[in-house]
């Protein structure tokens, strides 16, 4: 395993572009972690691959100005609303995640969540969550090799893994509040809200689904994210921002790019109380 093997170099290039099957990748990553020649080769390829992503950068002609503005406005509306609600130092979100990490080693809740998910989820979302679980297992293996090489380079992926784990944990957490709707469930837990919808038809041409939130004391719904179901009709979305003060969730069909206020009768309006 530890000796350098020239025959692996082609596979290292395949790994760098993310085209190596998972089992082969795990074996090769373990080798890379212990072989300086292969590490250097992999690093060289990763530079090229990082740059490769830039070739896809959209030109202005490839993205209409109006839609570009709508997309930005939608994202910035969510961000500004969340920023306004955050404390000035913005410590709540960061501390929450750090505290969660500090309590236990990062890989323990990931593995625990995977086991809990497999046991607890209902039939209709089991396939998707199982895929997530497989991803988590794969991530764990990747991170293990990475941590062996350099702890600092593992931080980014570790944080993402923790987030994915916490996202799944929201759905199955025993202390999460669940609010059934006709086509799924709204789950509030750990300061966040996850909406899971099943048998959702594709939105009509030129339309998309959009979530709406109502804050306590507010008279009008605030636009949240837009989304589309996967081909099986499943949509699993985490609403951005804190769940604090949100009293009602709704979803409606809106024009592509989203709307500032609902323009169609909502699929559902669910009070979180």
């Amino acid at each position, binding site marked *: 395993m530890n000796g350098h093997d020239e025959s692996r170099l082609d596979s290292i290039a*395949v790994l760098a572009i993310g085209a190596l099957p998972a089992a082969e990748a795990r074996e090769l990553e373990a080798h*890379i972690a212990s072989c300086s020649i292969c590490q250097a080769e992999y690093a060289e390829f990763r530079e090229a691959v990082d740059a490769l*992503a830039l070739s*896809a950068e959209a030109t202005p002609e490839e993205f209409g100005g109006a*839609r570009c503005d709508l997309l*930005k406005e939608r994202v910035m509306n969510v961000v500004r609303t969340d920023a306004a609600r955050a404390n000035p130092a*913005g410590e709540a*979100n960061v501390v929450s995640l750090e505290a969660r990490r500090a309590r236990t080693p990062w890989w323990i809740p990931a593995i625990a969540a995977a086991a809990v998910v497999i046991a607890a989820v209902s039939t209709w979302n089991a396939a998707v969550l199982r895929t997530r679980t497989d991803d988590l297992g794969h991530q764990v293996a990747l991170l293990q090799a990475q941590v062996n090489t350099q702890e600092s380079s593992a931080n980014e992926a570790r944080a993402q893994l923790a987030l994915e784990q916490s996202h799944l944990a929201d759905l199955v957490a025993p202390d999460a509040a669940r609010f059934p709707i006709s086509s799924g469930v709204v789950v509030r837990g750990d300061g966040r809200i996850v909406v899971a919808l099943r048998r959702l038809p594709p939105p009509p041409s030129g339309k998309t689904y959009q979530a709406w939130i109502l804050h306590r004391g507010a008279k009008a719904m605030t636009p949240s994210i*837009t989304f589309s179901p996967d081909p099986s009709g499943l949509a699993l979305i985490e609403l951005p921002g804190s769940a604090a003060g949100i009293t009602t969730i709704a979803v409606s069909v809106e024009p592509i790019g989203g709307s500032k206020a609902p323009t169609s009768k909502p699929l559902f309006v669910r009070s979180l109380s």
Partner: protein
Amino acid sequence: MDDADRLMERVRQRDAAAFEVIYDRYWRLVYGIAFKMLGDANSAEDLTQAVFLKVWSAPQAFSGGNCAAWIARVTRNRALDVLRSRASHPEGAMAIDVPVEGALDEAVFARLDGLRVRSALESLPPEQRQPIELGFFGGLTHDEIARQSALPLGTVKTRIRAGLKRLRTSLEASTV
């Protein structure tokens, strides 16, 4: 601490203005990768939104270094999730972050605008460019690339390696 590091630090402090700078700087990259991988504008918009809201909600995931490369990796990984949910591709491996000696730094990366990289990519022989694009943007495994191209697996792997080496050389020459 470079400019991107400073901006991301401000995003961690819930600074919406800093986030807007990040958005303006990278949305074309995120949307472009999403569109190229998913193939339709609606999915690309949804993914772009999801990526940037993830950047906002989890800025601590950025541990420094090349911000554009990080955002591109986040985008590609999210797009791969969508592709895998559309069709049951065998799971390809996400690339690991082995420490890079003499890596392309942010300043060099900044000079590598999309058109220049696209030009370098298009300068590759088609037999090298196609398997790289199928793997990186198409989310196919090397076995699937070999089947689709009707080539032996070994040939596909050799061409990917030769293409990446050639691409890197070309990019280095273009930034001198």
